[in-house]
């Protein structure tokens, strides 16, 4: 599903160039649930941005579902993001003045889906994350866990190939975190490929594979005995 070879990325900081990713080789097969771990500055967010086509690598190749991701203009990049990827952010990134269901429907608008289909589908995903009763509520009327559920429903709405989650439990308490991870595991069990960036050990151990990043290179990439989040709830 994801295939990257010898990926390099550096940023200009003043006059100096900061080499963040120093040759990453990495692949993810369909249906995997992978966590990328590392301390801050390890390059894990940069890697996720490149995987999410929000940023571009300086060197190396990236294939997403067999499609080469290279030198895309913003229009095609937007199209790929819409079709291939679903984002889940630490700070939820919901649009404040839109109701839960309208937030979920947003990626579908950019697919050009008609209103009726869109609303039906958004409602189905809200049901899936257990928030059907909250469809008409604005984000500021929801708890942190509920907001993240809306964000997950939104990420799923366009039926992407890969879900990318950036510290998705970073703003949540432990109990809520585990509930969210339970939801993520459930979605993965249905066959969705999911990448989770985290620096929390317990969250990482709820995935099936842990990739450890340090100073821009992968120092460890191993399968993990998945801990079911439900046991901790």
């Amino acid at each position, binding site marked *: 599903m994801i295939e990257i070879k010898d990926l390099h990325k550096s940023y200009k900081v003043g006059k100096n160039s900061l080499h963040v990713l120093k040759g990453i080789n990495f692949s993810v097969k369909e249906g995997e649930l992978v966590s990328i771990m590392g301390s801050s500055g390890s390059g894990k967010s940069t890697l996720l*941005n490149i995987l*999410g086509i*929000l*940023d571009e690598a300086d060197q190396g190749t990236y294939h997403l579902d067999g499609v080469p991701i290279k030198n895309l203009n*913003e*229009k095609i990049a*937007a*199209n790929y*993001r*819409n*079709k291939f990827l679903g*984002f889940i*952010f630490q700070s939820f*990134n*919901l*649009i404040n*003045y*839109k109701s839960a269901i309208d937030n979920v429907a*947003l*990626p579908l*608008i*950019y*697919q050009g889906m008609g*209103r009726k289909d869109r609303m039906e589908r958004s409602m189905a995903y809200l049901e899936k994350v257990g928030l059907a009763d909250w469809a008409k509520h604005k984000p500021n009327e929801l708890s942190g866990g509920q907001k993240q559920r809306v964000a997950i429903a*939104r990420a799923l709405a*366009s039926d992407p190939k890969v879900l990318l989650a950036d510290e998705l439990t970073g703003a949540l308490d432990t109990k809520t975190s585990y509930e969210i991870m339970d939801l993520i595991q459930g979605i993965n069990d249905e066959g969705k490929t999911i990448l989770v960036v985290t620096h929390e050990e317990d969250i990482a151990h709820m995935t099936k594979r842990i990739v450890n990043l340090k100073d821009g290179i992968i120092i460890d990439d191993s399968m993990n005995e998945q801990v079911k989040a439900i046991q901790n709830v």
Partner: protein
Amino acid sequence: MFSIERWQEVFDTISKNKLRTFLTSISVIFGIFILVVLLGVGEGMKNGIEKQFQSDAENKISVYTGVTTVGYKGLNPGRYIQLKNEDFDYTMSANAGNFESASSMYRIWSGLITYGEESGSYRVEGVMSDYQALESASMVSGRFINLTDQKQYEKYVVIGQKVADDLFDEKDPIGEYIKLSKINFKVIGVFSDPGGEREESRVYIPLSTSQKVFGAGNDIRSMAFTIPKRTNFDDALRESEMIVNDLTNQLKTKYKVSPEDTSAISVNSSLESAKQFYDLMDVIKVFFWGVGIATLLAGIVGVSNIMLIIVKERTKEIGIRKALGAKPMSIVAMVLHESIFVTAISGFVGLILALVLLENLGPLIDSEFISNPEVSFNVAITTLIILIIAGALAGFFPAYRGAIIKPIDALRDE
């Protein structure tokens, strides 16, 4: 993508930011309001000036004389040039066929008129039959002085509407006798003049009578002529200039007046003064448009500023949208849609306010120089089109800025 969703989003953001939208609208409303009111006043000035010119025939040439100021051919300055009947006859024969109507005029200075108990001081002029056309006067009742009156030295008088109102009140003045410097004159007509009360407080008697009764001999005070109308203003102007020059030369030669002397004999063409006024009008019009557009521009810059702030404030949202698959064009459309909507609506409000003001206040304003300020349909449409374009311009640069932000930078924005 110009669908219900886009409209919903525009309404969402507007209702979420009522104060900001309100303040933006005010500047546009004010801009268009000022523009339209100025244009209305400009139109009013034009109407007013046109009205001034309607008070006399618009292609009128008048000849007045005065005192010489320059010595010439051995003659001292300070000599009064007295026009005579012969001058009029000579001018008529020298310019045969050039004039449509012509009259000379003699002014009686002591204009005390009495009728019974009522009396008043009015301007009394001895004139010929064509004078009616020269003054653009129209008869309210009775008739104007004619050739027969002139030939038979009739003691007839034609009075202005104001004079009739003053002396006769409700009574019909036709056939009544009034005393003019103690001499009885029979009222044969009442006239009205587009020049208003000032020109309607005159009385006219036959020129020949005035010269005889008031002992003026052959003297006349002035002469006036009209030339036939031309459809082309410039042609008419050229023709009238030519006649003015001819007349000036003829009279100056006859009375031995220096060519440099401008006050002894003056020949004026109303067309020339009309042209000056129309030129002035054009300048004023350009000025008003300039001021109006500048005001509007200030409003547009305001909108542009606000849109820039909106885009900046919504940077994160734009990032989210881009991450979810929004194309740059859809961001541009989103911002443009909002800015055009805001400018168009507030511009429309400003236009309506200005029109209401002009409509209600316009007819009340009727001074000598401003009359019935109004705005034509074309002007209204023009300002609306300017608005839409302005809204698009005001929105474009902020929108473009929003479109080119990299999603990763936009998402990082707090």
